[in-house]
């Protein structure tokens, strides 16, 4: 659909991403009519919270509720830094990032593999051309800081989106470090051990919650790592529409890894009929690659986050599934 003169929306979104040829302006317009009001209300509430000097390092029930409703864009960098603990970590090693960048010469193999991915990170973002050197700095610093991970493809998308939101290399570095080491440790390391484990856990969850969907996926023969590796590796960056990713990340920084499972499970639950409607493996692969990741359900970030939290999911269940999955990864 074209951005017709009557459309009030540009063909580039507020983060600089070009809207694709298939972007549904009419539907987005309908969604935004309601969402803009929500955004305004939310912004006023957050202003009030921040004026009260609320301690953002303690995520209590009220703050959690606010965060689940979405952190307003301008506050995201600071709120993410505080609720995640990244700000505290930075205070403990204030020179770490700059020192890492002084450590030249960098490992050539790492530097080369990052350089291959720089032009391949968000080529559809009109501002990103000017951010490439900064993205390089974040990734090369982190790779030398954490040799067990080094550079893992996919981190370019996480760090890239962090940079778009924070517009700050150093904050992006600390938030990236928090994600890679505290939220999803051992996803990006050389053996990707925990990624394999969690893909198996995810499959078990689908079996428990929507067994018919799992049977169908199994029958068509599409392995879960094909479907969901990127979801977990990138925490949905470069998978879902950017606003939806940011709403998910708000909750990830406040509540941790469980949110990643909530989002993945919500993808399956909200698309149950579409999945069951696929009659061969190619249709199913296509659904997961194209249709489902840009459709109305996920573009309505507010509705999607609500769907995520309407699911019954306890940390204790995930932990017990993890214990079993270690023995039998995906």
């Amino acid at each position, binding site marked *: 659909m074209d951005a017709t003169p009557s459309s009030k929306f540009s063909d580039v979104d507020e983060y600089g991403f070009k809207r694709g040829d298939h972007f549904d302006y009419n539907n987005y317009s309908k969604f935004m009519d309601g969402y803009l009001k929500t955004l305004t209300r939310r912004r006023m509430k957050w202003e009030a919270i921040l004026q009260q000097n609320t301690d953002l390092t303690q995520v209590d029930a009220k703050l959690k509720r606010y965060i689940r409703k979405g952190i307003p864009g301008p506050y995201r960098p600071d709120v993410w830094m505080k609720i995640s603990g990244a700000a505290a970590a930075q205070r403990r090693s204030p020179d770490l990032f700059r020192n890492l960048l002084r450590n030249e010469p960098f490992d050539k193999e790492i530097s080369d593999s990052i350089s291959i991915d720089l032009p391949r990170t968000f080529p559809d973002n009109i501002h990103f051309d000017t951010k490439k050197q900064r993205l390089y700095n974040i990734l090369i610093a982190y790779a030398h800081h954490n040799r067990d991970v080094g550079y893992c493809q996919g981190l370019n998308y996480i760090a890239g989106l962090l940079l778009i939101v924070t517009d700050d290399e150093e904050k992006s570095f600390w938030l990236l470090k928090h994600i890679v080491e505290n939220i999803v440790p051992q996803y990006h390391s050389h053996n990707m051990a925990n990624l394999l484990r969690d893909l198996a856990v995810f499959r078990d969850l689908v079996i428990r919650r929507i067994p018919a969907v799992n049977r169908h996926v199994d029958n068509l023969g599409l392995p879960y*790592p094909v479907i969901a590796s990127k979801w977990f590796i990138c925490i949905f960056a470069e998978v879902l529409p950017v606003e939806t990713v940011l709403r998910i990340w708000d909750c990830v920084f406040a509540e941790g890894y469980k949110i990643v499972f909530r989002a993945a499970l919500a993808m399956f639950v909200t698309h149950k009929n579409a999945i069951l409607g696929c009659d061969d493996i190619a249709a199913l692969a296509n659904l997961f690659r194209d249709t489902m990741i840009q459709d109305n359900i996920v573009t309505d970030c507010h509705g999607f986050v609500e769907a995520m939290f309407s699911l019954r999911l306890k940390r204790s269940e995930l932990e017990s599934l993890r214990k079993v999955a270690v023995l039998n990864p995906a």
Partner: protein
Amino acid sequence: MGAREDEYDYLFKVVLIGDSGVGKSNLLSRFTRNEFNLESKSTIGVEFATRSIEVDGKTIKAQIWDTAGQERYRAITSAYYRGAVGALLVYDIAKHLTYENVERWLRELRDHADQNIVIMLVGNKSDLRHLRSVPTDEAKLFAERNGLSFIETSALDSTNVETAFQNILTEIYRIVSQKQIRDPPEGDVIRPSNVEPIDVKPTVTADVRKQCCQ
């Protein structure tokens, strides 16, 4: 796309492997959708696309799997090689290191894929003439020595992309149809133990053309 879209005589699974940035995803999109994306994105995890072609009046559906080139991703791609009957091992003619790593990819195939897998060595980005660092003759000789077929392609200007896929699919078809003559699926009660079967289920499915009586 007609009603016959899902009808095929053979289904072959083919994998695309090779270093990061050699153009695997663009080869796939050029062949399956006739698209090339200059603004391509790094592939994370595994992607997948299909296209059907005709060989000897038979419809062959190719199921092509594409993956991240970074070494650690091999951890999640154990399922990737399962049932694959063909592999396009891609390097970049303008980046010598990606050619040097071909040996490593061959070892990967030996360790994880069926031993009868048909392998084609593909030198991609042949449009970058002025930047070439891998001579055609050298790669051709290497391919001969290792029993691989060889072709140079450009996903950007389409050169040889169609031919590359046609050739490997035809080669697989010849092998599989020969095997069926020697070793018909109906008569598999007594199967000579010295014949290594290509796994014909579920990825190589012979004679599944849908019929009205089914």
